[in-house]
């Protein structure tokens, strides 16, 4: 099994979710993260004191998938999340040695 993790722009979340649904992904876990990267940040001014906001809101999307689905998933995410503008984010794939569905105790691909 593989864990596909993507860091995307928050506004692309809906598209990514729909993209993943359309290729048959049944489960996703997301979280709010902040990213620092080439995109850079911006400056805000609070009562006259400037401060740099270097971390930009992003959404992290995590999908467990069978090894054979990995490329399908990364392709779907790439297609849905790309705006072509800097800061679109990254996808990375990590090996997973075991997956368990808590409710049933099933494991392996069945658990996804």
């Amino acid at each position: 099994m593989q864990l596909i993790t993507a860091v995307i722009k928050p506004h692309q979340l809906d598209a990514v979710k729909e993209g993943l649904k359309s290729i048959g992904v049944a489960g996703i876990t997301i979280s709010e993260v902040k990213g620092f990267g080439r995109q850079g940040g911006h400056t805000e001014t609070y009562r006259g004191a400037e401060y740099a906001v270097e971390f930009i809101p992003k959404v992290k999307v995590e999908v467990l998938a069978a090894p054979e689905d990995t490329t399908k998933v990364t392709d779907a995410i790439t297609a849905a999340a790309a705006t072509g503008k800097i800061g679109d984010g990254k996808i990375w794939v990590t090996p997973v040695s075991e997956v368990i569905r808590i409710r049933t105790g099933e494991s392996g691909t069945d658990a996804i």
Partner: protein
Amino acid sequence: MRWKLLTGGGLATTAMLLAASPVLAQDGDVVVEEVDLYVRFGGTAADIAQTVILDNIFIFIAGVLVFFMQAGFALLASGLTRAKNSSNMMMKSLMDAALGVLVFALVGWGLAYPGGDGGAWFGFAGWGIPGLMDGLPDLAGATEDGFYPLSVSSDFFFQAAFAATAATIVAGAVAERTKFVAYLAYTVVITGFIYPVVVSWQWGGGWLAERGFVDFAGSGLVHLTGGIAALVGAALIGPRIGKFGADGKPRAIPGHSIPLAMTGVFILFIGFFGFNPGSALQADMSVPVIAVLTLFAACAGALGALVSSWALLKKPDTSMAGNGLLAGLVAICAGVGSMDVVPAIITGFVAGLIVVPAVLLIERVLKVDDPVGAVSVHAVSGLVGLIAVGIFVDEASIGTQLLGAGAIIVFVGITSGILFGILKAVGILRVSAEQEIEGLDVSEHGAPGYGPDMLTPAAATA
């Protein structure tokens, strides 16, 4: 109708004139045979002075309550919009008031109260406010039943609060996408021209007053005016990004804080007890009656919206109930000086009942994006109020009420259309899509409305 009011649109002539003869009976009891509490003007110089002073103090207090409504509008608009625009909403409410009051003082007042030549459509008594510092009211033309004892300063204080209200109404409807400079620009035009001209027709003694139009506290002059400008503004600026799906169906953009929004509703509720009773313009026995009718209409309005939101939306919606309370308050303004209890309750209830479908229609049919329901609460309920007077008040004519409403709609529609059209053409009406997505707090004012310790990461772009 069971009571007559000495104030407001021409209803003053029917006050009873009884003889007063307090008699001190043997047992120390005072037997009051007949006292005419409506004879407000008579007795010694000390008596007159006291009547005048109480009137002015009362109007001052009422004006403070109306100014408090600025906090209510700010909280309502801020609460019903997203966190990323919360600072912007507070800021524009503050500047609406600040700029609006000064512009109304400089230009609006002279236009609204043109003096002798009241019949004119665009009378202008001149710049500034003559007599503002005199302190004393002009007692020259005082009559026993139509006594008008306010000093210019009291009168201005109260009316300026109304002008600020008219401008503020618009802000909620165009929230989350309007350039800050556009707020400043339309505040100037509304408080300096559009609102004063409408006021001149009635309270300035103009053509509507002559035709017997009844609008005691401004369902039409204030709320319909503000609501129509809000409708035109919201229509011309277009919906917020993401408000309507590709299929044209409206999508929910939840406000960031119902507690703040409802606090705003409670404050507006309180403020209307300055707005309506204060419109008696004198401290007489009509004040508590007006207060009770205002209270009833507000309560009935909240109930009305409870019923219709429960029926139409399956659940009793909190902010809709709040809108309903306000709808009742707005609708009763027109007739609160001359209605009886049951008609007042009906007026409020109907306004509340209607406000929910109005919100849905404006969004679903007109495809106008009004984040706080300003058009429904102010324009629709204002219209309900004007019509209710035509139905329930003997002295009023439904035709005249509709004429007045129509005139306001046409005049405000055209002038605010020109106003927002120019702002749009010049390119200072709406922020860029990037700024809108980022939020106006940062893009317009430099920093978010909530600190990093309160904002979830997604809030910045939600």
